[in-house]
């Protein structure tokens, strides 16, 4: 950058304010995160009375013990892993070939397909028609209801298409055709091995959205043993808490059920379960941040 010039006084003041601003932003975001980590290993009596405000106080792992002893959480965890892995695989199988085809300028009809996909970004059938469709397809209470309706996202197809378009040299494709190689061969043997970064980005974007999703499970699953982790979290973090805070007000049927579970899951569990459920992403995040950012940037080039 051009910092070789001497900074004037007002520039120094500006920079100082700028650093101050960013530091405030840092603290505002970081503090709640640190608080949760500390609270998860602190004795609840200190947490609830406010004596624990940054560093753990009254160290205990009871919260984690309760989480690990809770079969519901384990079951939800296993379900989420299965849904995430299978869902992400399906996402890749649908997204990558389509994006590659759309990146080829000699693909007749690509604007038509792209147009068809883009329309869905701005207009959709809405909640009820979507629900009726899933019902008519017989997918209620199956894993299919969680992964098929989100088998691809237009945004990710655009990101992948932009990547293929800008990184796979046209000459490569032309050479392959002269050698008599089929498009299938070209895609699997040459294009995919050159596209590892975008495959990583796609797997991450899709994977995180599967991991974090709760709404499809809420409306399409009625069998609790199939609940993903986020639905179990909803019972522990939201329903229980809400029912405790709003005096006796019933919102929906599952409140009553959550009330029964209330005794079995102590308030201690809250912070630990947040950590445990977010752990896979927290661990991966620093290593993968670069890829996430890359994905957004590739998308924005064409956005």
């Amino acid at each position: 950058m051009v910092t070789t010039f001497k900074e004037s006084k007002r520039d120094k003041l500006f920079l100082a304010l700028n650093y101050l601003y960013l530091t405030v932003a840092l603290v505002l975001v970081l503090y709640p995160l640190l608080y949760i980590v500390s609270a998860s290993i602190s004795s609840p009596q200190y947490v609830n009375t406010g004596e624990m405000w940054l560093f753990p106080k009254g160290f205990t792992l009871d919260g984690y013990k309760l989480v690990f002893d809770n079969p519901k959480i384990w079951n939800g965890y296993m379900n989420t892993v299965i849904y995430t892995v299978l869902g992400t695989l399906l996402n890749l199988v649908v997204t990558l070939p389509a994006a590659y085809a759309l990146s080829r300028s000699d693909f007749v009809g690509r604007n038509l397909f792209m147009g068809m996909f883009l329309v869905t970004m701005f207009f959709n059938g809405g909640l009820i028609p979507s629900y009726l469709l899933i019902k008519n397809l017989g997918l209620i209470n199956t894993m299919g209801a969680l992964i098929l309706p989100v088998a691809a996202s237009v945004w990710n197809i655009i990101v992948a298409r932009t990547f293929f378009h800008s990184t796979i040299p046209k000459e490569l494709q032309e050479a392959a055709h002269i050698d008599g190689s089929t498009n299938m061969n070209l895609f699997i043997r040459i294009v995919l091995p050159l596209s590892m970064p975008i495959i990583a980005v796609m797997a991450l974007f899709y994977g995180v959205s599967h991991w974090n999703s709760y709404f499809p499970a809420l409306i399409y699953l009625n069998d609790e043993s199939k609940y993903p982790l986020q639905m179990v979290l909803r019972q522990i973090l939201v329903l229980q808490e809400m029912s405790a805070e709003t005096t006796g007000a019933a919102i929906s049927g599952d409140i009553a059920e959550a009330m029964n579970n209330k005794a079995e899951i102590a308030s201690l569990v809250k912070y630990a379960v947040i950590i445990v459920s977010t752990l896979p992403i927290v661990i991966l995040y620093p290593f993968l941040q670069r890829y996430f950012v890359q994905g957004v940037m590739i998308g924005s080039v064409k956005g």
Partner: protein
Amino acid sequence: MKGTGQQAVQPTLRPSGGIGKKIRQNWELYLFIAPAFLYFAIFHYGPMYGIQIAFKNFIPSKGIFGSDWVGFQHFERFFNSHYFWDLLWNTLSISFLELAIGFPLPIILALAFNEVRNGFFKKTVQTVTYAPHFISMVVMAGMIITFLSPSSGMIIRLIEMFGINAPQFLNEPAWFKTVYVLSGVWQSAGWGTIIYLAALSAVDPQLHEAAIVDGASRFKRMLHINLPTIVPTITILLILNTGNILGVGYEKILLLQNSLNMESSDVISTFVYRSGLVSAQYSFSTAVGLFNSIVNAIMLIMVNQIAKRTSETSLW
């Protein structure tokens, strides 16, 4: 490996191509796009077929096609209902609050990031502020509820430290929108900077050098060089955001909603969920949802037209 056999290529591909030949040569590409095509046809265009029940009296045993037409009856019922204006007001006010607070913040943050040299500090702030983007809605709602719990909430105690009597944020309608919008900003402002940072990396350093020679301060340069560079990006995102003015999602609100804050937390999408899936009034809530989508589509087209007229940038 790149560029193998480049020498022989030029004449072979282009000239021989009639469209028919191109299609035959690339038939596999249609195979490639088939899964995505089927997916969008079934799961996105399929529900669009179902929209017709907004104008019918849908009876499951008769099916979508076989149910009887009733015209605009469901729409009339919605527009004439006593909750119509409340729903519309809640949806619009949350949207505008989000736009007014949530939209400029990432821009300011990105401009601030841009003034800082690449280094440990910048990297730390970025890593930390991006992180909440990956927190799930459920965990986010759980955090909000826990931190605002009147008996033990962290934020409540922070406020009380200053000797102020903290309100029951989630139980008072007056506070719901603030809580909703500010927590959203906390979660997404950092991540929102990425797209602007990408645009800012395109600033021509020569402009800065010239401005420095002319004695422009850092602040002036930020305002007159950096900001104008990202105006097209800002415009596009603004169009997309205003096009979604009635699109306040149900996922987070449903989690934070309770009977005490309902008055200000009930928006069109949560109403559609409740009347449609909880009370099974399929046709009526489809009509409400359709009203919502149509307003969004009209807004998007209008804002895009305005942007087209007044600036160079537009979606199409």
